[in-house]
């Protein structure tokens, strides 16, 4: 087991005073449990007992006030704090890489209120997505944020990584959903960004924390937009001869002002994996939902444009198959037990580059020695472009080398095709090396200055996203 770091005993004593002795742990079982998120190379190694880094202590506050005290003590004793939402991040953002103190935010998991007039609801940041959605569904509403990590990720985590759910084309991405939030700043002060639909009060402060990855503050509460549960749902799917044609069809549908909740283009390998009966085709699935009149109109528009462009109707069943399988990550652990490695990479580009990006990225990743499978889908569409999501698996001789080379191939293909290196998983520590190429030196420097201004002691989530200067 990796060696753990040390934190001053005086810090621990003071934190015990703030949160209570029972909410601070240095037991072996606790340190092992908070040592890793869902960064898949780390998960691969974990089966052999090789955890990237054990934290020195786990602190579980119950409210913002306790976090304020903890961060003040962390500044006083120069202790690095790694926030831990629910540990579903796939870029190592919650790994205490220097044996830091872990700040477990999962006790703060409550539904607070629903305002049916304004269509907003408030939750604590540590609530798991599925529990949040259940609270809303019970009252007749939905937030519409259903990522693959729905059952194991938190609202605070979604905000901190700029996450996106599968129904994003209608309901928006997390930045479209969050109206206000409460944040504990690195110096322990509390910032309240009140919930309003929009404001013109200088640069939007909430943007600092949407994607802040716990480096600029701890999101403790958020007010989000909600929708009445849909009264009508239409599921459609179509098969096409190529990615290029499929992308063009979705582009035309969105240009026609349609807003289907789910739009996904599956390449040939993913079409075969999901829908075995369809060979050598690319498929698109659509889910339209909401008020009956709108949904039926949208359904007709999708059908017309898809068929006018050579789409072969493949029915509702494909959508049901996807709905059934969409959270199933069960194959990954099986492959990893056999010595293989799997992971996913999500990037984004404009429509003009989208097909080339897919072709270049997939072929570069397939060319890495040890690759056995590279497949992809487009999801999370905009009028201007889309997210490309690639899944890869390999059985290499040197797992570490293969994993790094595959990521490098993917990132380089993305940058070559004018894409952005991450659409919604974030940077963590694993993708950090590509930030210079993504943002340019001035962009990185700007982020570093912001980090330093907010967190001069570098207390929060050291080694992730960006380090202060």
């Amino acid at each position, binding site marked *: 087991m990796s060696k753990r770091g040390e934190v001053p005993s005086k810090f621990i004593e003071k934190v015990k005073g703030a949160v209570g002795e029972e909410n601070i742990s240095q037991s072996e079982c606790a340190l092992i*449990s908070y040592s890793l998120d869902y960064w898949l190379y780390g998960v691969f190694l974990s089966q052999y007992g090789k955890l990237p880094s054990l934290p020195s202590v786990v602190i*579980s506050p119950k409210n913002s006030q306790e976090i304020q005290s903890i961060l003040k003590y962390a500044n006083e004793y120069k202790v690095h704090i790694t926030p831990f939402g629910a540990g579903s991040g796939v870029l190592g953002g919650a790994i205490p890489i220097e044996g830091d103190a872990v700040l477990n935010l999962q006790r703060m998991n409550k539904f607070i209120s629903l305002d049916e007039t304004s269509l907003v609801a408030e939750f604590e940041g540590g609530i798991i997505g599925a529990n949040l959605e259940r609270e809303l569904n019970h009252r007749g509403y939905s937030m519409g944020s259903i990522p693959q990590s*729905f059952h194991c990720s938190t609202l605070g985590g979604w905000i901190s990584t700029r996450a996106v759910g599968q129904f994003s084309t209608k309901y928006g991405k997390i930045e479209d959903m969050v109206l206000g939030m409460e944040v504990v700043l690195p110096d322990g002060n509390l910032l309240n960004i009140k919930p309003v639909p929009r404001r013109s009060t200088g640069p939007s402060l909430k943007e600092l924390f949407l994607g802040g990855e716990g480096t600029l503050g701890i999101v403790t509460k958020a007010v989000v937009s909600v929708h009445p549960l849909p009264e009508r749902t239409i599921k459609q799917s179509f098969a096409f001869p190529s990615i290029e044609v499929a992308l063009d069809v979705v582009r035309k549908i969105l240009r026609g002002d349609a807003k289907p909740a789910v739009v996904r283009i599956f390449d040939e390998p993913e079409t075969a994996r999901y829908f075995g009966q369809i060979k050598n085709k690319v498929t698109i699935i659509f889910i339209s939902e909401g008020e009956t009149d709108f949904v039926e109109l949208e359904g007709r528009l999708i059908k017309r444009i898809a068929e006018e462009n050579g789409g072969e109707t493949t029915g509702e069943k494909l959508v049901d198959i996807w709905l059934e399988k969409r959270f199933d990550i*069960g194959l990954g*652990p099986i492959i990893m037990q056999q010595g293989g490695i799997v992971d996913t990479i999500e990037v984004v580009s404009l429509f003009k580059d989208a097909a080339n990006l897919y072709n270049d990225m997939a072929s570069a990743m397939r060319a890495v020695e040890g690759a056995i499978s590279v497949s992809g889908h487009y999801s999370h569409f905009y009028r201007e472009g889309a997210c490309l999501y690639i899944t890869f698996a390999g059985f290499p001789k040197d797992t570490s080398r293969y994993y790094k080379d595959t990521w490098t191939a993917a990132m380089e293909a993305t940058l070559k095709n004018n894409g952005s290196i991450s659409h919604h998983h974030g940077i963590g520590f694993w993708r950090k090396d590509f930030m210079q190429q993504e943002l340019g030196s001035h962009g990185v420097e700007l982020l570093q200055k912001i980090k330093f201004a907010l967190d001069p002691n570098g207390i929060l989530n050291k080694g992730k996203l960006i380090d202060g200067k």
Partner: protein
Amino acid sequence: MENKKQLEQITNCALCGNMCKDSCPVYLATGNETVTPQKKARLILYEEKTFLKDEKGFFDVMFQCAMCGACKLNCLYDNFDLRDFIQEGRNKAFKNGMLPEETRKRVETFVNFGNPNGERELIQKGKGEIGYFVSCSTYNDKPLLKSVEKILTKSKEQVQEFGGADICCAAPLYYAGDMDGFKKAAEKMKREIEQRKLQKVITNCPACIKMMTEIYDEVGIHLDVEFIHTVGFLDALLKEGKIKVNKANATATFHDPCILAKDIGITTTPRDIIKMLGFDIKEPVYSGKDTHCCGGVPGGKIGDSKLVASVNAMRTSELKETVADVYIAACPTCKVALSNIDIKDVAEVVAEQIING
């Protein structure tokens, strides 16, 4: 671990993304990552591979589980039940003398008195091939016992009531990991039922039914008897017109006991009864198969009394949120655990509204 398949199964769970954690009541009540199913699996794997140094810490985590099976119902993998592995951990803890204090005390009481309550009188009333087994929690709950007896009298069913003394299904020993003690006590329970020549046994306690069916079978003890939960018996009496009831004009919230809903699969029958009693049902956010454990008794399914209190506080709060006129359970242990919301067993509500036979 006994075989390669088990090692593969626990490793799958240990390498999963914790896709069931949102269903785990112990996690939801505490926000503690260590007690989530996937982290428990990682610790079980590490214990198996001798990576762990803190054996007592590991055993304590094995007792920080409600054993409710929520993770099984929400698992990506077929035929996997993390509880089997947690149970193995508990068995080892027992063998190594490393039980949590509350659990140890409960076992000690059982060893001395043959039940978890202590000194008890034998209950033996009535005759017939249908038995009504007074479970340990029911033995201590005189209003509930009286209600059942009232219903039996009104229904004119021939039922042999038995329990008390050292007649117990042995669930406390099972959950404590004392498998040798459990098997002996289970054999004794089998004799108690067989000597009464029963064809059917009715009981209020879902845990008794789970033990005497699924778990007895697992340890090679088979009882050729049909077990019926009280709700099944009451439902039949009402539907067959053997008892008649007044109609309430009120709202009711039903708390699904975790074993009854998740393991035995009974969720609609108690609701049918409550509707027949004239209540309008107000569901909590978590109900049916998605119910949350009440916490149980300290040293029972959960070994840690602080954790019992946390799980109990969460479930109490979830139920109170419905603001119903009446709260109803179908498990005597749940009734004890949730007593601060004045919850009644479904049999008590039937008895209160019964008109005649």
